[in-house]
């Protein structure tokens, strides 16, 4: 078991290196820093000096991989690759275009992101699984069919609609909560209600349908027939037998996103003005701040890989076949 976890950890290293190389190639090889400078400064008629100044300010005035002009070890370290990519492994992300320290920015913005993402995750899971269990309990009835049709309908609606529609109805027509913003202490609750509700509702359609399929697949298995032959009630059957077995496939999809909760929800944060990492990313994209985008790509990948690792571990906890291997 321990060897298994350590092995998964070791496997994460080449993947992180791969992610790093891909991002580096994307940001520095597809376009030269000169191109970026020219674009940031306005494409037409940029003075070469201005380009050089822009690059120097941001540390892009070094060679990509090999600095022949430097001495000793600096030949390898005084390069864009080392400064901008290798340093990421120690979570040193450098500065954004506005001069702020990205690492500090990230750590202060994690809180608001989690404040939205965690309730959306937990409530969403609870609502969708309960709804799916309900449909499965009444499987092959009209309620089930109607539920599935409703889910397909909900799935077909754009997330943007839930947000825009929710803001309009709840905030503008009913005046129940502020349209957007964020506060300190307990006042934050009134800002969070709507984004959380929108996040949960937006996920009901796809989630319910997915869990329903998993439950139905389990219900068709032989051991369920055995349990029925023992005289178990349908309720016990669902909760004691089916749910526990269904947890195994459910975990694959669920655990892997838990670490990613830190990076928040791009759309919701940006629409509701929540100062989290999601809106940070969107602002960076709009401002074309490559340093921030690069950092977020790296963090996102690290969190995903942690998620994969957690998935492996949670499998072992739920499935005795892996636990006793």
């Amino acid at each position: 078991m321990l060897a298994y976890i350590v092995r998964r950890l070791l496997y994460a290293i080449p993947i992180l290196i791969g992610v790093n190389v891909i991002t580096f190639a994307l940001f520095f090889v597809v376009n030269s820093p000169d191109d970026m400078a020219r674009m940031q400064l306005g494409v037409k008629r940029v003075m070469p000096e201005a380009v050089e100044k822009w690059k120097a300010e941001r540390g892009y005035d070094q060679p990509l991989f090999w600095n022949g002009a430097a001495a000793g070890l600096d030949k390898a370290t005084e390069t864009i690759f080392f400064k901008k990519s290798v340093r990421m492994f120690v979570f040193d992300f450098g500065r954004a275009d506005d001069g702020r320290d990205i690492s500090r920015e990230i750590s202060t913005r994690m809180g608001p992101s989690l404040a939205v993402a965690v309730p959306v995750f937990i409530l969403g899971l609870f609502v969708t699984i309960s709804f799916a269990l309900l449909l499965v309990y009444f499987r092959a009835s009209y309620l089930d069919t109607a539920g599935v049709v409703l889910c397909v309908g909900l799935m077909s609606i754009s997330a943007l609609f839930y947000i825009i529609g929710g803001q309009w109805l709840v905030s503008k027509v009913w005046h129940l909560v502020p349209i957007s913003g964020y506060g300190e202490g307990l006042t934050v609750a009134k800002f969070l209600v709507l984004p959380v509700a929108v996040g949960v509702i937006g996920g009901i359609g796809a989630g319910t349908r997915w869990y329903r399929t998993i439950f139905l697949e389990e219900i068709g298995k032989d051991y369920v027939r055995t349990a029925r032959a023992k005289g178990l009630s349908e309720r016990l059957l669902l909760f004691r037998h089916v749910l526990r077995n269904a947890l195994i496939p459910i975990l694959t999809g669920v655990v892997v996103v838990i670490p990613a909760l830190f990076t928040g929800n791009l759309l919701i944060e940006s629409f509701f003005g929540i100062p989290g990492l999601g809106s940070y990313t969107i602002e960076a994209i709009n401002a074309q701040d490559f340093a921030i985008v690069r950092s977020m790509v790296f963090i996102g990948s690290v969190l995903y890989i942690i998620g994969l690792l957690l998935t492996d571990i949670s499998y072992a906890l739920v499935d005795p076949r892996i636990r006793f291997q």
Partner: protein
Amino acid sequence: MSLLIVRDLAVRIGAIQPVAGVSFDIAAGETFTLLGESGCGKSMTALALMRLLPPLARITRGEVNFAGRDLFAIPEAGMRELRGGGMAMIFQEPATSLNPVMTIGAQIGEVLRLHGGKPERVIELLELVGIPDPARRASEYPFQLSGGMKQRSMIAMALAGDPKLLIADEPTTALDVTIQAQVLDLLKRLQRERGMAMLLITHDLGVVARMADRVGVMHGGQLVEVSKTEPFFRAPAHEYSRRLFAALPENLSGGRTPSPPNPPLEGEGNKGGCPLEGEGNKGGCLLEGEGHAALLAVENLSVHFPIRRGLLQRTVGYVRAVDGVSLKVSRGATLAVVGESGCGKTTAGKAILHLLKPAAGRISFGGEELKTIAPERMQMVFQDPFGSLNPRLRIGRILAEGMRAQGVQGDVGQLLEQVGLDAAMASRYPHEFSGGQRQRIAIARALAVNPQLLICDEPTSALDVSVQAQILKLLRNLQQQRGLSYLFITHNIAVVDYLAHEVAVMYLGRIVEQGTADDVLRNPQHPYTQALMAAVPRLDGQAGTPLLVPGDPPSPANPPTGCHFHPRCPHALPACKDRYPDATPLSGTHSVRCFIRFQGSGSRVQ
């Protein structure tokens, strides 16, 4: 009054009617068997009695009275009390019928709680069904148990509610022969001790002979014959019942196998044991005769699968699936390789074809060593008629594939006619054919490139008895017409008797006994062979006291020291623990790897 009375029961699924008006009674303490081939409606009947039919199936008419109550008038809630309490059920596939994430103890305890038993009885029940170390086993999960143990746990679970009627749906079909005998004996003992009635569903006449008080033969959703067991076996009344008997391999017309055109066992130089015997070659080869060079000679074949563990997934050991096997197949003859699942017989067959890479050994064909596949010499017929034909290709293309790959000219229509099919079937897809027809197509495909040897991997084990008989006959006719040789892999002794000239018995990767069919089947010398023979349910109903081997076959990843069979062997000597016995020739044709000598069947000499 009977415990269970079924009158005119009918079940419908969509347009089909799998059960079409069935009536029978079961008295308390009686064993009633429902006998029939697949699709005859026997399992549906059982599920209808439990009211556990699949979602689309409906009971369309009939009455069932259980212990004086009208079963179809009981509401679902009341039915739940009856299930597990009044009547309990055991299913065919123990591997999937237990909840994989709950311990055995918890699953049995659930029944006890539901039907008013004491939770402590879990251990007692496990002991009752013969599970060693029941306290530890109760806290284990199904995947930690062998197939036989799982089925024993299923039985314990069924007994937990003290049912008056036990329904067992093919309870031993998924098990190995020796385990099958153990489970049948267990069921019989429990039924007798508890005075329980039993409804046993099976396709196997041998199981009926061993277990039943009365038998009902089902065909096309109807009971065509109901009779006491003894008269049934003496003189089956219905035409269909008679056909079932006639289809048994031991009753097939032509009786024993005729000798191959060029009998391999005459000649000189085979008196002094095997000339190949020497360093590293103790496989017990027998059939070496001068002037009778075998068509296929396998020497010391080994196939190992690596076991990887630890941080870097280093190979820490090997599963010796096939461990130094030597055999020979003569021209025009059949060698049967007999063994239970996991003994390595299929792996050996695939390695001989070079579908798997052997770790060691020499395979020669017609005196010439083979290093890669030799499609024009050897072909294979696979076990599963549904998995062996690509569902996306027409039969014509399936048959032509091998010919094209090998540049052989041939006529697809002729091939089909040769295996008893219609030439016009070439334009159809596999799903339009039954299992038996598919197996004929698979044989035709193998024959398309004119091989001299066919490796048949349990080609009839997935088929019903009557279809099996047709395929066996076809194989025998083809052998006579074309002078084909067969390497026939099977676990079915009756099939061996019908088809084989020579027999090799495999246990855990090694051949333990080898000889002519007469040698091995009439005078088995290895205790394992004896156990296999004894475990076969016999039709005369007088199997005597069958020699039971206890326990399950060990894992080939971790075989016992010394003779692999010694932990299960009723005659084991101290020496058996230390050393694997060498092959000892008993006659010019018969050899065995055992320290003990027997005379006759089972009586020990030394």
